[in-house]
């Protein structure tokens, strides 16, 4: 399997997962780089290409969970981006969304980001190690909490 192809396809998705986890541009970029270094090193061990998404999201979420010692210490404010393709208002809403997700518990951040990436529950269960039933219950609860947070921030 070609690394460049995998990288180009999954970089934006992995980036969103990392931003939802840390809500910090620089830290997220570092995480994305670390994740794809691990992907590059282990790509030859991937047996079934059909599972590349699950495989990459496992690496990405594990890498995020490992940063727990750094992220718990400080809650950083996301600076406004210098250049973007979206309107300033949309960009601000996106940054608020990242911040709201980053305020959740660590495992909830991962779960909701995978849901937002439109992954099926069976795949989320395979990535996180939860049962499918548990994923369903948790996701329902997190969706409500996130919607409330966004409403409280006047972003919905």
């Amino acid at each position: 399997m070609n690394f460049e192809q995998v990288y180009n396809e999954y970089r934006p998705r992995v980036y969103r997962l990392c931003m939802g986890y840390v809500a910090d541009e620089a830290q997220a970029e570092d995480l994305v780089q670390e994740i794809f270094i691990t992907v590059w090193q282990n790509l030859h061990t991937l047996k079934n290409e059909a599972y590349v998404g699950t495989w990459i999201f496992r690496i990405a979420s594990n890498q995020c969970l490992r940063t727990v010692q750094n992220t718990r210490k400080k809650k950083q404010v996301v600076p406004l981006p210098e250049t973007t393709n979206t309107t300033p208002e949309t960009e601000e809403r996106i940054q608020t969304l990242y911040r709201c997700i980053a305020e959740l518990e660590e495992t909830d951040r991962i779960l909701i980001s995978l849901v937002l990436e439109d992954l099926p529950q069976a795949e989320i269960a395979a990535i996180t190690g939860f049962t499918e039933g548990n994923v369903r219950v948790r996701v329902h609860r997190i969706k409500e909490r996130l919607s409330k947070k966004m409403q409280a921030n006047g972003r919905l």
Partner: protein
Amino acid sequence: MEDFNDIKALWTQAAPKQSVDASIVIRAAKMYKARIILRTSAGILALAGALIVVSLVAFHYQFRFATTKVGIALVILAIVSGMLMNSQLVWLLLKPNSTMDNKTFLKTIKALQQKEQYIQTKFLSLYFAVLSIGMMLYLFEFTYGGLLFSIIIYSATMGWILFAWLYLRPRSIRKQRERTQKIIDQLEGVAAQMEE
């Protein structure tokens, strides 16, 4: 859920600010690999160098007592193992597999942190013990015969050993333990969120 659909629509609009080419990541990965190889080679070279020094000293100098040779070997052994531990070479062997699911991964890294804590604690005690015994044996030949001289030398050495054993060793162990314990506690906090 209408609200959540809005969130989802917003999420899909988010994209990385920077465009980083795959070749940059590949270059970084290769540099990382090169650093690991360099670090591993440095560790092996240090070990090989120490073995050569011990062999040269043992064969070249005509010590009267075997205790001197054993003493030198022990001191060098302690120094080299200290260098290897500091080079993080050992920890490379304990690197977790990051392609497992989150739950198993958290359990694995917690177990690895505990193992690291255990190894560091045991290693430090063993390091100071071997270094101290090595020094005592080494000095034996040079102080042999002169009672006052040997009392002075051995008192000074014993003083240093006691200082290292009673102050430096517990201090290093405590610092390392605090660092790893903090990580273990935080990992436990995340793992507790995964209880079903």
